[in-house]
Each structure stands twice: as C-alpha cells, then as structure tokens.
C-alpha cells in the first residue's frame, strides 16, 4: 500500500534528515515506525503525505506516485500530525464537516460516523464548541476522528497516542485494528514501545535517517530473548 523507494531528504544542501529509505507497507497491516528523537520519523511521514518533497526517491501510495499524481494519491489516506496545529477558530463540527465535504462523505454516512467516532472518544457533546477552547487531548481526538471519518484505505498518524488518556488510547488501538481487519492499512510513529509491541504487525526502526531494522514483531523478537525496549536500545545505540 505504501512503498518508499530510496527516499532521502537533505535540508539546506547538507543536513541529511532521511537517507535512502526503502519500505514496503502491506495492505491490512499496522506498521509501527520507531526511532529516537530527531531520527527522521516525522520527516519521513511528511514526505509520504506530500507535505515535504523528497530530495531523492519515489513514494507510491496504492501504486500511485504522490509527486506525479498527488490528488489521486491523497484520496487514499488521511493524516494526523504530531502537533494538533489546526485552524482552531471554528467549531469541532465545522472541522469534521469540512473534512467530510473534502473527502465527499454523504450526509447520512457522516452523521453516523461522526456520532460514533466522537462518541467513542467522548467529545460528541463538545463538537459545537470552538476548537480553541479544546484541551490538547481533545484536539488530538478531534483530529483522529477526522482522519477516520472518510474511511480511507490508509491512515497515517504521527505520535497519535501522546495526548490521549488511557481510555481514548485503547479506543484508538481497537479502531486501528478494526480498520486493518477490514482491509485498511495503518502507519504510525510512536515512542511508546509497549503499545507498538502489542498492536503492530510489523515495525521499522529508523536512526539518523536510515532504516536499521524492519520486520514482523515475531521475527525481531526471535533474534533475541530481550524485550522490544531492549532490542530498540541495542539497535539505536550500536547502529
């Protein structure tokens, strides 16, 4: 579903944020993207979503090159950034209706999905309020609800669990799993190794812009008796 072929990102002509990254994320899997701070996770996700142009390489979303056919490629995914920086002088329901219109969600479907999703995250009663009155966690829940609303093939999330309370975190995990069970794909970055360990089908570990490991959880764990945390520490220190 998502293929990156040798993508690199160089800032100011010399700062290499991502270096020749190759990944192939399959349909129906939850792919966890790990790495220490500043490893290049956000830059990679921003390149995959078309926010940043790669210096080199190619990105295919469901077989469509995002640089050559951005609109077609973007029809296949939604994105939740690490910081909920959204235009916040509108109400929560304005924001969700805006997304529903952009992704062409019918009135009937949006009513059902908005009610269900925001109900599960506990923000349904706050949808009529201005977003700028929301807490960080509420904004995060609104963004996640917005990303799930169009029922896209792929959902890309950058550190989505950071601002969530335990109940919402659990809701998100079950929604991610349900999405993949229906044939969807989830790519998300996180620092929370225990969550990655429990819900991801495959993980990729990035350090200094290079992918240093990429495999199923079972494969990674079969090579060592250690926990994912210990493997992560080992890999990111030695690589």
């Amino acid at each position, binding site marked *: 579903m998502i293929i990156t072929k040798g993508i690199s990102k160089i800032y100011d002509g010399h700062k290499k944020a991502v270096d020749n990254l190759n990944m192939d994320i399959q349909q129906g899997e939850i792919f966890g993207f790990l790495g220490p701070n500043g490893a290049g996770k956000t830059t990679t996700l*921003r390149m995959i*979503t*078309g*926010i*940043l*142009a790669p210096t080199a390489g190619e990105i295919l979303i469901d077989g469509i090159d995002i640089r050559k056919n*951005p*609109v*077609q490629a*973007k*029809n296949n*995914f*939604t*994105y939740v*950034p690490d*910081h909920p*920086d*959204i*235009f*916040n*002088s*509108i*109400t929560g*329901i304005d924001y969700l*209706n*805006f997304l*529903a*219109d*952009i*992704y*062409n969600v*019918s*009135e009937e479907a*949006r*009513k059902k999905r*908005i009610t269900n999703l925001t109900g599960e995250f506990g923000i349904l*009663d*706050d*949808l*009529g*309020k*201005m977003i*700028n*009155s929301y807490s960080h966690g509420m904004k995060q829940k609104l963004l996640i609800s917005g990303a799930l609303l169009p029922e896209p093939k792929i959902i890309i999330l950058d550190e989505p669990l950071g601002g969530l309370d335990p109940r919402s975190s659990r809701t998100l995990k079950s929604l991610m799993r349900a999405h993949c069970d229906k044939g969807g794909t989830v790519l998300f970055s996180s620092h929370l190794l225990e969550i990655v360990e429990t819900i991801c089908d495959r993980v990729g570990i990035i350090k200094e812009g290079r992918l240093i490991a990429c495999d199923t959880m079972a494969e990674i764990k079969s090579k060592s008796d250690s926990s994912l945390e210990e493997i992560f520490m080992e890999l990111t220190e030695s690589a």
Partner: protein
Amino acid sequence: MHKLKALTMIQLKDFIGKYTSGLGMKNKYIGRILLLVLAGLLAVPSITLSIVIYDSLQIIGQTELLITSMYLNSVIFMFIFGFPFIISVFFFARDSHFLAALPIREDSLIISKLATVYIYLLVVSTLILGPALLIYLINSGFSIYLLILSLMTLILAPLLPLMISSIIILPFGNIFSRSSHRKMLVTLFNIIFLVGILGFQLFFGNYFEDPEMVQELLAGGGFIEIIGMNFPPSIWLTRAFTGSLISVGLFLALNLLLIFILKFTAKLFFRRSLLAFAQEGGSSNGRIYFKKRSRSFQLIRRNILIILKEPMFLMNNGIVLIAPIFIIAILLIQGDYSLAMLGSAEMESYWLLILSVFIASPALMGNITATAITREGQSFWETRVMPISAAENLKYRILTTIILSSFSSLLFLVMALFIIPFSLELYGLAALFSLVLTLLLAYVDIVINIFRPHLNWTNPTAAVKNNLNVVFSLLIRAGIGLVFFLFYQIFPGLFVGSNQLVFISTIIFAGLYILVRTYVYRQGAEKFEKISI
C-alpha cells in the same frame, strides 16, 4: 534587576528573531541590505517634508517649529503603528501563561514586553523625526547642546506614545476581557482609534505645510501656543531647542511620570487584563449539524474565516478595504475637494479615471493574497494532505481575495451612484476596469506569496504586517502607477483624455492578467507543491 534584564533581552531577541524571519529572506546579508534600502525609501517622504517645512519656516524666522511639527507627526505615526502592536504583543501573544508562571514581578513582565514595542517605535521615530533633527542640526550649526538634545529627543520620543497607548489600553483591556466577543471588541476599538488618529493627522497635516496658514495662526496668538495647548510636550521640546533648560526638565519629567504611572498600574494591568484576556475557555456550545456542502464552498469559507476569526487579520484587511472611503471623507471635510467640484464640467474628462480608481481602490490598497499562504501558519499542512490539487488550493485563496475586494468595490460603486449621478456607461467602464485590476492584482500577489511563504510565525502581526510580501506588493502597485504616469507625461498626444487611458489600461491589465494567471496555475502550482512546512 538581573531578572528584568534577562527577560527584556529574551523578549528583544525573540522580537528581532521573529521580525527578521518574518521578512523571509534566506540570505541574511541580502535581507539586511534590503532592510536598509527599505528604511531609506521610507525616510524619503520625511526628508522631503522636513526640507519643505524648514524652507517655509525660514520665511517667518521660526525654524525650530520644524521640530514641533515633525515631533507631532512622529508621535501620531507612533500611535498609528504602536497601538495595534501593543495590543498584539499583550493580548494576542501566546506567552502570557508561560510568563505568568515565572518567578518575576508583574511590572517587570510588562516592562520587558514594552521594550520590544519601544524598539519598534524607535525605528518609526528615527525615520520620521530623525531627518528633521538632522536638517535642523545642519542648518543651525552643530553644537554639543543641540547634538545631545537631538539624541535625547530621538531616544525619548517613543516613550510618550508608548506609555499613553499602554495606559489607554489598560481600562479597555479590562472591560473587554469580560466579554465573550473580546477579540472582536478589541479589533473594533483598534479600528476606531486608528481612524481617529489618521483623521487628526490628515486634518492638521495642511497647517504645517502651508506658510500662509502658519502666519495666520501666528497672528492669532502664536503657533506654538496653539499646538502646545493641545500637546504641551511639543512646546517644551521646541523651547528646549531654543535653549530653555526648564523645558528640557519638563519634557524629561513628563516621561518619567508616565513611566511611574505605568509601573504602578502594571500589576493591575497584568492580572485584570492580560491573564483574563488570554483565557480561551468557556466557549458556548453551538449547534451540531451534518449538512453536505460543496468543496469550493468549504475551501472559500475556510479562507474567509481565517481572516474574519483572527482579529489582527480582520483589522489589517478591514482597514485597507475601507480606508479609501475614509480618506475621501476627510478630503471632503477638509474642503480640499467638494462633490460640486468633482461633478463640474472642467473635471468631466477625468470622471472615468477618478471613478475607476475609486472603485478599484480596495484592490489597489489591499493585498490580501500576498499573505494568503502565510496567514495559515502551522495549520497549512491541513489542505496539503487533502486530495486537492495545488492549482485548486491556490484558486480558492485567490477567489477569497477577489470576493472580498469585489464586495468592497461594489459598496464603493453603490456609494458613488448615490453621490454623483454619472452616466451608466461610465459606471460600467469603471466597474470593468476595477474588475480586471482586482483579478490581476489578486494573481500577482499570490505569486509573491508562493515565492515567499512564511509559515513559522507565532504572532499574527508577523504574518500580515512585519512581512516584506506586503511591501513588495505595494511596490508593484506603485510601479504600475508610475509606468502609466510616465507614459501619460511622455506621450500626452496618445491620449485624448483620461477615458482613453482607462480604456487602454483595462486592455493591458486584462492581457497581463491572462499571463499571470497562466503562470500561477502552471509554474506557480508546481512551486506551491514544494513549499515545506
């Protein structure tokens, strides 16, 4: 004192950093050169005005009145520039809560914030009052007394408008912070205040430039006294330049008094106004709806709401869109022009030109698309990840400007229809000229913003005011005007009257519009796709 110094330094660094990054120049040396050139250009009108006033005053032998006049001018300009800046720094800055948690006295927080405003106003004062002081100094022969006095005047000049503005804002901020529409109220208050100041400036501007008027005023009890009655610091300053040490003392004492007043009210200012104002909570719960709308409606609505919901953007755009009405009203009140004069037979050959420029003035003065991308700031990613082509994304930003400018132009057209009954043909031609110019300038401005997007702002003022895009956009307008003026001057025979000039301009602008539009949706869209966040 150590904490105050550290806080002031960090606020100043933050301000300078924001300002220079707001200019959006990648090469810092080019940026600095450009800033100097810009400062030079901004000082030109002030230099010219100072020379004209000095020459006029030499006739009546009271050249020190140049200081009175230009000091008053600079104070008025500092109010115009400083008032919105103070509001922006205090009410719309995002660091109020962060600062409130620091173990620093509240008056220190206020003073450190005012330090950034002071630097800003010092630049304004240097550009307006600086040339006058220099001209007076050169013509009076350099003396140590005058040199020290000039430097003191320049350094102290921003304090008065700074302190008075802050003291005025205090009670209003306190009142507004209790309202659910506080941001809107501040914007409205700001517009009213600026209109008032601008009106004062336009109204009194003529007195200083006309020697006959000056002599008339002198005969009626003394010019200094007349001005001084309304604004004593100007009289003290003028007398200080003629050697009165008592006046120097009075001028210094007034500034010190204002600093003390502000220092004693700072605690109240911080608690009752700033912190209360910065609280975002308590939003009322609106209706939940699930209505399907078109994509174009949603994208235009989003762009319009970004302007309407951000007080600084609303104020900035609102002022440029209504300013022409205000300027014309002032000119009519002043008696420089009258409706009868405009409608007279001698002016007939200029009717179409005047009407066209009047109706097109929102497009000429406003440059909304020059910041259409920048205005989004960190939320720019939203439309970038959506399945919208770059061309479509740009189209709705441009359409937003066209809608706002055209709405304003339409109001002007209706106003003109009621004021002077020109022929319908004339109105039609003027409307066509206005429409073509609105289209052209909306597309030209987006090109500027595509090349110079600045999304990393933390203060909305940096997005729309401290932004060279706006200057470039205005320079392009000035350039277009200059080309046509020169063409008209060099080849007067080519034009039978101004009607022909308007007609030919409309055709040229239409051609340029097609060219720029083609560029925007081809190369411009490609460049837009490459904008990094």
